[in-house]
């Protein structure tokens, strides 16, 4: 078995043009720099330990590839989960830590593609997942079911959206070229529509566990189901 097909592969060095690698690297550096600032100024002290736990959990669950049919597997991205728990900025930091450890320690994801991987799984999944979750949680009934529906949909969209952006990087901005764009986009989005279901299931399960134990640690208490919100208020 070749090393590339053993496990989850983030974007390797060879898939993108240097220009795309540099551009996504700049995006990642800028967002991570701002995220460090935001964490320093705004992160609640009680959330500090949650950052390490979330990074550890995302790393662990990213190791678990689950079959989605068609001879394909998927694994958690975790950007939406981290954004729901900690907000999109800190989610970017969490994913940057995970992706850095994977790239430097485990050879997963090319070092020149680290910026693109952070841009996709941290910045994109974190901000799209995080803001969609907020919008949906506001719009849906403030019940446990409504809240977790918002969590699930936001997670699914974060994965499918990230797969589309990844397709853009590797076709128009990479070695597969514009001529391959249609099949690459179609296959990536189609497969990640399935993988996104796994992302939604895992994210809903993880958020449910935090909701049941320490709802006060979750960002944006006003979005929580009413009962959990009261619990959070008491705990705070």
């Amino acid at each position, binding site marked *: 078995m070749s090393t590339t097909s053993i496990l989850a592969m983030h974007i390797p060095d060879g898939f993108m043009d240097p220009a795309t690698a540099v551009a996504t690297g700049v995006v990642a550096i800028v967002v991570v720099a701002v995220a460090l600032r935001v964490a320093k100024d705004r992160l609640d002290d009680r959330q500090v330990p949650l950052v*390490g736990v979330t990074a550890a959990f995302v790393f662990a669950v990213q190791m678990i590839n689950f079959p989605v049919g068609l001879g394909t597997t998927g694994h958690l991205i975790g950007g939406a989960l981290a954004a729901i728990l900690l907000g999109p900025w800190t989610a970017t930091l969490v994913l940057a830590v995970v992706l850095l*450890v994977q790239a430097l320690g485990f050879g997963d994801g090319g070092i020149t593609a680290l910026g693109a991987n952070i841009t996709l799984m941290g910045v994109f999944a974190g901000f799209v997942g995080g803001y969609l979750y907020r919008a949906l949680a506001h719009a849906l009934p403030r019940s446990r079911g409504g809240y977790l529906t918002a969590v699930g949909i936001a997670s699914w969209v974060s994965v499918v959206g990230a797969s589309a952006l990844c397709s853009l990087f590797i076709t128009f901005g990479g070695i597969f070229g514009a001529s391959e764009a249609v099949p690459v986009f179609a296959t990536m989005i189609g497969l990640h529509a399935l993988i996104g279901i796994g992302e939604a299931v895992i994210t809903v399960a993880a958020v449910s566990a935090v909701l049941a134990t320490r709802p006060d640690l979750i960002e944006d208490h006003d979005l929580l189901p009413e009962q959990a919100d009261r619990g959070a208020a008491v705990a705070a």
Partner: protein
Amino acid sequence: MSRTTGFVVGGLVVALLIGGILSSFAASDPDGLESAVIATQCEGAADSDACLSEAAGDPVYNAAPLADYRLTPLSGVLGVLACFAIGGGLVLLLKRTSGAAPGGTRPEPRTRQRVE
């Protein structure tokens, strides 16, 4: 043990169990990105794995100490601990050096604040 310490220890234990034990049961088929490349770029290739490896190119950085051990329990445990230490340590360091009063710069808990 404070409630937060309990939560952190519990969360870390869950992550260690997943990364150290459950990871052995991970499926090994190509993931979404690999499958998409195989289905498009490597369509009709005699050896799709070889075609995929060629497309991925040689790693620019190839000194990853655990590159060949991704699926062992030890590598899962080490990765989980590294992420916990770096993620938690980074934020702790940031908060410590912020010069803000203990408890952060927020004037009050956000519980009752409406964001947006």
